[in-house]
């Protein structure tokens, strides 16, 4: 058992994580946006569909992680080409009548210049998931022990314990954990806790056709990610790792990413901070008060007993 000793001035708590901590490394340079991860996750965890809503947000119609969506693929269209007619000074002609000639409209040059590799734009795709934070606020605030740090170092909701109080929901700095409508419990990625116990990969990582989602020992994944970044940076100058730093506000992610743009572009917080960072000092204050109160009660009881 390795103890994460938080030397940051904001907190003194210790976080127990096992030596052989397991994690995800999601390499978005390999993602083809197929959403196999979303479906494999739902199949394995027997989640419900999340509604049938056409969002027009590129090819993303599930929009966000939630109680029934534990993997979510974001699609970001970045095609920098100028838009043809929109740049024209002349006003657009009206829509022609059925018998009207639109041929003249077609004479306008709405096309744009040659598309070169470096300017052809990008369609970013990234499979988001619970980060399994080293310092997990959801875990800290759970009053029932439903949220646990597993023997794999992952953060797991035990739905037989969860009473649906919902404290964990606002605690998550990523907005990952959510109430699952059908059960009323808090729900999120368990990194397929049951599969890990049986020596299987999580369902999403197993299905991923292009190994964009990699599962393994977190230290090994971090080393692999460093190497990967060094290898791809020439091809993808904007590539960066996200969540691999143990010194960040959540003590590093158990599920971290190689992104091609700033985190906020993917809807991820640029600098997440564990929302319970002030808890230790609050706890200390609370503990002193409780102790004082207890002594008072005990004293009173003794008094009563004697009476």
């Amino acid at each position, binding site marked *: 058992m390795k103890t994460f000793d938080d030397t940051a001035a904001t907190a003194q*708590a210790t*976080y*127990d994580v096992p030596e052989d901590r397991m994690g995800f490394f999601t390499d978005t340079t390999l993602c083809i946006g*197929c959403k*196999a991860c979303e479906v494999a996750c739902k199949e394995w965890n027997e989640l419900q569909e999340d509604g049938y809503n056409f969002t027009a947000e590129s090819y993303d119609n599930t929009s966000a992680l939630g109680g029934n969506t534990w993997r979510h693929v974001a699609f970001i269209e970045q095609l920098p080409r100028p838009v043809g007619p929109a740049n024209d000074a002349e006003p657009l002609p009206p829509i022609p009548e059925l018998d009207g000639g639109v041929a003249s409209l077609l004479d306008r040059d709405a096309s744009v210049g040659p598309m070169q590799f470096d300017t052809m734009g990008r369609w970013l795709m990234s499979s988001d998931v619970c980060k399994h934070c080293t310092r997990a606020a959801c875990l800290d605030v759970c009053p029932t022990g*439903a*949220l646990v740090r*597993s023997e794999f170092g992952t953060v797991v909701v035990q739905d037989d314990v969860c009473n649906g109080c919902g404290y964990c929901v606002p605690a998550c700095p990523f907005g990952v954990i959510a109430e699952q409508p059908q059960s009323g419990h808090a729900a999120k990625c368990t990194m397929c806790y049951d599969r890990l116990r049986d020596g299987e990969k999580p369902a999403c990582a197993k*299905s991923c056709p292009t190994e964009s989602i990699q599962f393994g020992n977190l230290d090994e994944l971090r080393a692999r990610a460093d190497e990967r970044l060094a290898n791809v940076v020439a091809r993808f100058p904007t590539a960066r790792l996200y969540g691999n730093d143990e010194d960040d506000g959540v003590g590093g992610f158990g599920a971290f990413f190689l992104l091609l743009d700033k985190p906020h572009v993917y809807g991820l917080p640029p600098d997440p901070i564990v929302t319970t960072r002030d808890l230790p000092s609050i706890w200390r204050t609370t503990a002193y008060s409780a102790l004082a109160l207890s002594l008072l009660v005990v004293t009173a009881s003794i008094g009563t007993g004697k009476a």
Partner: protein
Amino acid sequence: MKLDISKFGRWSLLKQLGSDRLGLGAAVQSQRSATLVSRTRSADRVVKSICPFCAVGCGQNVYVKDERVVQIEGDPDSPISRGRLCPKGSASRQMVQSPRREFKVKYRRPFGTEWESLDLDRAVDMIADRVIATRRQTWQDRDETGALLARTMGIGSLGGATLDNEENYLMKKLYTGLGIVQVENQARI
């Protein structure tokens, strides 16, 4: 009175006396979590299969428990797919178990306004009668030049690319035996 600690085995506070002093890990593990077994492990058998969607031919492992499919996932042994599946392949279990699947014969009589139920054996019998009758009515022995035709142009068939080779083989063999030539499938479209 002697304290039986085992009776307090599920009491987190005592567990916390162990290594998990913060009560965020093993100390609060529930009975269910402690005994959790994956569906793939508890399955009665694993059946080797192939994905029914596109033509890549990804390997699938079908896990069966109590004569019911409980999970379908990629077969890591496949040199084609290496255990991976796309979203459609990953949804195979939900597809084969979709509550929208049909399990009863439906019959619509000519000019009928709704489906009626029909016994399967009766349906096959009625279809056999229709085939025989239409074949007789539309049979062509020879063309106008006297060339042998030995066929019916009154019956056609469409489909096959989602079926097995053995099924296509029997279909074509039966149709050919009956003189049915208008046999087509998705390869045309």
